[in-house]
């Protein structure tokens, strides 16, 4: 089901002979037209909007211009939030990897002799997809709230001082991001580990490799593709997320991420040029990152 989207290329039956035919055009045109109309031109709209300047006559309106200053302004104003987004997303990706990799190993390798348990475990990993993302995050907020069970325990042992809360801190935002993206990390790694030949691990063992050496020299390199796509599938949405960091959920004014800034500027302040410029900065940053990854693996394998 959902995880098929992440599994890397399924073994093709035969090397397919690709033909040239007008049918290809018929198959491609509608979809390409759609992508150009609703992906490419919106990006162009963003670029145009990001260079607009306030209308001198009507307050709150903007006119087309080449106001490159917008970029300087947003980077100066929101640099802190941008760096915070990168930091939070990186930490959440790291924690998701620390939880997701052993989980994927467990399902793909440890549970291999028990196919029924393996299927069930896989269903458990994708289960969070089926309950609203927002409600899951709100559930954590309520579990962490001052009246909730966790706060009670933490204050009784003195970790949480009087008047201090768990929600609204960097901890709770990173916690929420980690939780929400664990399946995105686990599934691609699982997809590479499930087809790993167990005889290779035996061979490592036979050659007097300790479990740690076998893991480092056999398992890890063979699951690298999964780790890479899992990292991207976690980092990209986490860096742009604004639910976990929003004040109504797990964040506060001190945890604002770039997504929150874009949302506020676009939908609340209606400062469209600032929102557009920030979106493009975020996109450029992510594209550079993806390009670096792609250079090390290859697009078709990655996605």
């Amino acid at each position, binding site marked *: 089901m959902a995880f098929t989207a992440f599994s890397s290329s399924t073994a093709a039956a*035969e090397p397919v002979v690709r033909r040239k035919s007008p049918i290809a055009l018929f198959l491609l045109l509608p*979809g390409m037209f759609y992508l150009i109309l*609703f992906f490419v031109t919106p990006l162009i709209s963003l670029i145009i909007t990001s260079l607009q300047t306030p209308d001198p006559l009507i307050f709150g309106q903007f006119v087309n211009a080449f106001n490159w200053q917008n970029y300087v302004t947003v980077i100066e104003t929101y640099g802190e939030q941008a760096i915070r987004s990168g930091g939070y997303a990186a930490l959440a990706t790291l924690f998701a990897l620390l939880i997701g990799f052993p*989980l994927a190993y467990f399902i793909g390798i440890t549970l291999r002799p028990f196919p029924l348990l393996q*299927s069930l475990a896989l269903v458990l990993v994708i289960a969070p997809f089926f309950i609203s993302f927002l*409600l899951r995050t709100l*559930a954590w907020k309520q579990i962490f709230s001052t*009246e909730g069970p966790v706060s009670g325990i933490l204050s009784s042992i003195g970790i949480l001082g009087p008047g201090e809360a768990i929600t609204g801190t960097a901890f709770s935002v990173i916690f929420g991001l980690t939780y929400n993206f664990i399946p995105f990390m686990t599934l691609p790694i699982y997809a590479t580990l499930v087809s790993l030949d167990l005889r290779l691990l035996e061979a490592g063992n036979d050659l007097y490799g300790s479990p740690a050496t076998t893991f480092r020299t056999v398992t890890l390199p063979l699951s690298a593709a999964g780790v890479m796509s899992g990292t991207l599938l976690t980092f990209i949405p986490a860096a742009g997320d604004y639910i976990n960091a929003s004040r109504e959920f797990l964040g506060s004014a001190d945890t604002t991420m770039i997504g929150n800034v*874009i949302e506020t500027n676009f939908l609340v302040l209606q400062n469209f040029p600032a929102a557009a410029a920030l979106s493009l900065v975020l996109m450029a940053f992510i*594209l550079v990152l993806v390009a670096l990854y792609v250079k090390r693996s290859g697009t078709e394998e990655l996605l």
Partner: protein
Amino acid sequence: MRGFGKYAIWVYSVMAFIFLLIPIAYTIVFSFNNSRRTNIIWNGFTLDNWLSVCEAQTVCQAFGNSILIGVVATVLATTLGTMIALALVRYRFRFRSATTLLIFLPMTTPEVVLGAGLAAQFLQAGVPKGLGTIILAHTLFCLSFVVVTVRARVASLDPALEEAGRDLYGSPIQVFWRITFPMLLPGIVAAALLSFALSFDDFIITNFNRGAEVTFPSFVYTAAARGIPAEANVIASAVFFLAIALVLVAQFTAAARRRRLAKAG
């Protein structure tokens, strides 16, 4: 991995599963909470929320909108995506790498950028935001996922079967509908389910393009500040049970088929 390591991974994984399930359990438990205004503190068990879901009208309306958007966007994305997947695997054409790039870029673009881009475009073109703009936006981000899912299925098809169809004087249209399409169907169904799930749970892109329309996630977001009515928990829990039931049935039929095949082989 032997001895201690073997137990450690079981313990660690079971803990991870419990961690994954905590908020789900919480949401389901609180759908049975006897709450009047806000649903934060446990007030005792009741079935009322389940029996009168649509009394909180806005919740049900939002849910209906989400279903409508999900169905239309899924149909559009699955149709367009399947066509692209077929073309990518089967045919040679110019600008191939540019095409592939164009298909995968939306997947690597943060939702907030996709949402803001579409909203900026609708703003400039003077298109009023509403259900239509939400559907257009959802179709866009589902499209790439459909292509990836169906492409894997097309790549694993045996071309000999279609050749056999042609040898038996099947017209290209007959060959497609009687051979290719039925064999692609599991991939198409998986892609459609994935699209629907993505669309149904999307909040970020929707929020930029919804205008005054309310979907289920945007209802939850707006209500979050003053407390979620228990009816929202009911709807989320019902959807969860339905989806899990579907997945379990699919898993078990697949397992049964594998066993049958193994026996036959």
